[in-house]
């Protein structure tokens, strides 16, 4: 049996497959469909310093091979997470990584500090790429100085594994990746959703209450793959790839492009046990090609 484990900084993942933030709740939502413990890691729904109601309905529109969402980081805030959600998920035997967002640098720092003492939260993923909030979110991820500043501020207070999740809505994603690497991020994950829009021609109205939203699903995979490949060549920290991954072949493509691990997002909505199929499928691929471990294929795209 090929070895599936990979390392993201000092997190030893049993396999490279993680659930992407915002598509997997906190984990228990999927207990009926899969053994959540089999995942390499869970990325929780975004956590902010205060309660956020998110945007108004409608927040979702189906698009060709994908969907737009403008949920807007709905969550009950970090204190609620610690009191009410963490006790329900700390039994999972996998890495639980909290996706952290906010509208100010102080907010990011506050959430990071509060999460630090939680034993089973082995890392955080800084969300500087949410396109659906008026303040903060993507604003931090679309300029190098802002991305650097928020990474540095959190790095100063958070000594566990720090992943930074990048926005694809930039001219040069490599520059942003380098900026957050320089400020001490342990890993970089990409891509968050692509800013998009959908219109109801009959009603002459936008389909989302926010007019624009984040595009995800298989439609964005080629863009994600390109960006992961570019970033993997430019940084030394491990890259976590995501964007439209729906099966093991998609996952392998990201690994070949240089991702050390991958996240599965929107595909969880179509098949809530898809992550297990992807883990098993990666193992099959490695066996079929006579590899003894998944690390042997990472970044080995032959060009």
């Amino acid at each position, binding site marked *: 049996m090929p070895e599936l484990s990979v390392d993201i900084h000092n997190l030893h993942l049993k396999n490279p497959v993680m659930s992407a933030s915002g*598509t997997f709740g906190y984990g228990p939502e999927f207990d009926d469909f899969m053994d959540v413990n089999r995942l390499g890691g869970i990325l929780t729904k975004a956590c902010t310093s205060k309660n956020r109601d*998110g945007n108004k*309905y409608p927040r979702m529109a189906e698009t060709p091979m994908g969907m737009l969402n403008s949920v807007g980081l709905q969550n009950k805030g970090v204190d609620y997470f610690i009191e009410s959600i963490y006790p329900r998920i700390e039994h999972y035997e996998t890495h639980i990584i909290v996706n952290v967002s906010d509208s100010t640098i102080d907010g990011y720092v506050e959430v990071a500090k509060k999460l630090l003492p939680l034993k089973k939260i082995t890392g955080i993923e800084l969300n500087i790429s949410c396109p659906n909030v008026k303040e903060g979110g993507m604003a931090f991820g679309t300029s190098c100085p802002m991305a650097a500043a928020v990474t540095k501020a959190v790095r100063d207070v958070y000594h566990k594994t720090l992943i930074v999740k990048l926005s694809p809505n930039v001219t040069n994603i490599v520059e942003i990746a380098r900026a957050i690497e320089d400020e001490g991020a342990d890993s970089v994950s990409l891509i968050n959703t692509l800013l998009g829009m959908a219109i109801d021609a009959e009603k002459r109205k936008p389909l989302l209450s926010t007019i624009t939203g984040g595009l995800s*699903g298989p439609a964005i995979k080629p863009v994600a793959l390109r960006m992961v490949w570019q970033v993997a060549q430019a940084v030394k920290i491990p890259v976590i790839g995501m964007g439209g991954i729906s099966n093991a072949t998609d996952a392998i493509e990201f690994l070949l492009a240089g991702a050390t691990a991958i996240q599965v997002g929107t595909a969880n909505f179509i098949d809530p046990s898809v992550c297990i199929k992807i883990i098993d499928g990666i193992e099959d691929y490695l066996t079929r090609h006579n590899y003894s471990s998944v690390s042997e294929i990472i970044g080995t795209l032959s060009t």
Partner: protein
Amino acid sequence: MLNLECPDKLPEILPGQFAEVLIDKSSSTYLRRPFSIYDIDYKENSMKMLIKSVGNGTASLYSLVEGDRLNIIYPLGNSFSLPEGNKVLIIGGGVGIAPMLLLTKYLNQKGIKVDVLIGGRTKDDIIEPELYYPYANVMIMTDDGSLGEKGIVTQHSLFANENPGYSRIYACGPDPMMKAVANQAFSRGISCEVSLENLMACGIGACLCCIVETTQGNKTTCVEGPVFNTRQLSGWH
């Protein structure tokens, strides 16, 4: 009408619960589609879904033939609740009647007297009213008067009675219809439950796309709904 046979034993399905159907034969349909469960036969391990063709996804379901297999996740969501009294009114508009047959049978079994009001634009929109006859007193209302009384459901003569003796009104149909029903119920001090049809992506409470604003903040239609008491819904009364 989709007749589905399950290879495994059917789980218990409560009235108001729904299923998420994967539509893999349509290239333009990516997400699952939520549908009410219309009828169940536990002995035969079969159930029915009532589906109106409104887009590419539902159109693709119309092309299914006997023996095709469907991937569905069910039962999902909460359910209609039992009323406090022993007489209720059920109102279904168009294809919104879908979850009401199970509810009618369920309440009848609990010894509750059920009146059912079925509304539609024309007589062609009134779906299988005869299925209700053994369990309820059935009334029909069409916009054009081609069957039953003429008008929209809230113009039915039963509403002329200020005190019709219902302890609850259950409604499912287009939003404006449910809101009108909720107002009729409210003005008479009758509790009202509705089944919402918000757009969904996951159906299991993970994506938070299908939220509805309630007096206790946003709730998911897929897990905390689809059934809500209208008093809980912000902006309904």
